């Protein structure tokens, strides 16, 4: 029972939020902020796998987000809607409720495959050079989408609102919010289990000394492939959710600016710390919203915060530590140290 207490708590928390949203205790704006928080949690923790745990510098996370966002959106519109050029109306809208997670997953798989574009070069190069490759991949994805007129090109792609509406018409619940909460929770579970297993800790060994890792029997190519595909796949799922929150996407959303935003969250929270990524995703999203009255000046204030952070706490808020390291009593909710298998 104790072992699953954190899971149960999280589910209870989600149920409470969904209830509050249903009952109208939190308005549409608050729901929107909550959804952004969830998406940012997925994005920052998945990027932390690469930039924190594996020590590479990926700055193309938004590219993978775009792949997932477009695949999921196109699939959903083709399957469930009727009045667009792309639409096939293959299935009635009521099926969307079951198939939404499936299309999300397909988007994630597509993004994971796109992640191979970075994973394969990473076998031969690393550090700054790989960072440039990730940047290039980001641009390749964005420019490709811009040039495919069938999916809207630079004008963007819309109609996801109809899919969301079809779901709420079938069963009246805030489905996108529910899926965001669910995926965010699952992301943390998957990443935590991976980096806490001896198998997954191999990526930290690769960061530390790749040659020693290879000589000690760690299959670094395989691990890099897993890490890049997992990270980009999760970004893809986050992209799919993001598209359905906005109802409209265009290639301009997924530029280096978006990648930078995610990177800021990772470095703010602390590299190699999942709880840091979660905390900073929450904090950063809230700060962005609080500073909204400043309009464009918030992009002066936020980078300034970043400069101060790098000067006084370069390792980020958590810096290679988890919440359970700082507050050992929290271990009760996960597992005591002895039983940690």
């Amino acid at each position, binding site marked *: 029972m104790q072992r699953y207490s954190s899971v149960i708590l999280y589910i209870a928390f989600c149920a409470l939020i969904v209830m509050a949203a249903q009952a109208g205790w939190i308005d549409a704006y608050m729901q929107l902020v909550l959804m952004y928080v969830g998406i940012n949690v997925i994005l920052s923790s998945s990027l932390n796998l690469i930039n924190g745990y594996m020590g590479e510098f990926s700055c193309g996370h938004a590219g993978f987000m775009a792949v997932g966002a477009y695949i999921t959106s196109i699939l959903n519109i083709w399957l469930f809607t009727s009045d667009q050029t792309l639409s096939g109306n293959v299935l009635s809208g009521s099926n969307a409720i079951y198939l939404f997670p499936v299309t999300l997953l397909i988007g994630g798989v597509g993004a994971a495959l796109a992640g191979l574009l970075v994973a394969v070069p990473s076998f031969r190069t690393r550090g700054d050079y790989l960072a440039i490759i990730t940047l290039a991949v980001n641009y390749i994805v964005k420019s490709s989408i811009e040039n495919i007129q069938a999916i809207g090109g630079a004008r963007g792609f819309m109609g996801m609102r109809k899919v969301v509406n079809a779901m709420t018409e079938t069963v009246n619940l805030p489905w996108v919010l529910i899926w965001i909460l669910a995926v965010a929770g699952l992301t943390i579970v998957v990443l935590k289990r991976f980096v806490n297993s*001896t*198998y997954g*800790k191999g990526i930290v060994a690769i960061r530390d000394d790749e040659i*020693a890792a290879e*000589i000690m*029997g*760690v299959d670094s190519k395989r691990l890099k492939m897993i890490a890049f595909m997992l990270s980009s796949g999760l970004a893809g799922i986050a992209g799919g959710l993001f598209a359905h929150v906005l109802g409209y996407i265009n290639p301009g959303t997924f530029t280096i600016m978006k990648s930078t935003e995610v990177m800021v969250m990772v470095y703010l929270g602390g590299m190699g710390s999942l709880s840091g990524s979660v905390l900073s995703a929450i904090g950063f999203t809230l700060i962005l919203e609080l500073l909204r009255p400043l309009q464009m000046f918030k992009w002066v204030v936020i980078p300034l915060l970043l400069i101060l952070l790098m000067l006084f706490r370069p390792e980020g808020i958590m810096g290679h530590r988890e919440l359970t390291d700082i507050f050992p009593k929290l271990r009760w909710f996960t597992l005591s140290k002895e039983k940690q298998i």
Partner: protein
Amino acid sequence: MALLEIRHLGIYFGGLRAVHDLNVTLQGGELLGLIGPNGAGKTTVFNMVSGFYRPSAGEILLEGRNIAGLSTHKIAALGIARTFQNIRLWNELTVFDNLGIAQHHSLGYGFWDAVLHNKSYRQNERRARKVTEELLELLGLHHCADEYPKNLPYGLQRRVEIGRALAVRPKVLLLDEPAAGMNPGDVEQLMELVRWIRQEFKLTIWLIEHQMRVVMGLCEYITVLDFGETIAEGTPDQVRQNPRVIQAYLGDEDVAHA
């Protein structure tokens, strides 16, 4: 069949012939030494055997199978582990994790098992942790299981690195200057440790060492390299009296007098 047989091994770096026509046979169970002046190519030999360099010529047969040119992690999985001249532990991981990750190739579970926390994961992870605990206990390192290697004294770091190599469960253990930078007391302990792990783990050990006391005290058979060539081999006594070895280490008599 010999455990490890090296035939006509050679490597060139551009025009530089770093190692040439090296022949070594390990039947299994011996403690072999590899010595030679600085730059003789000793570590290069280890780098080839452990797969870090691909040899330009020759074969490395491990139990009859040519491993020259295989990827490094596969060679480790086949049973060759090593330590490094300049300790290369993973400093951002605890001693416990250092030994755990060295069992990577024999963990017996993969990514999905780890994510799903299924039976295969739980059993194998528990087994791996037990192996680590036993090794730490055997090497007297259990008190620093949760330490980071960089915080340990030098002698202990060496010990942890040997422990990490043992966690690979090798058939052949390559020790690259294990006594480098140690004080006499530590060296004594290290020699004790090498003898002991050879007995305990029934290992074949091949070691590079500069300190003659260590080589002569430990090894039964010694190969001497100079400029990549094998200039002598034999028992410690034979090697010690070999004029070519004396020449390589002390220089030419005539030149020295001039």
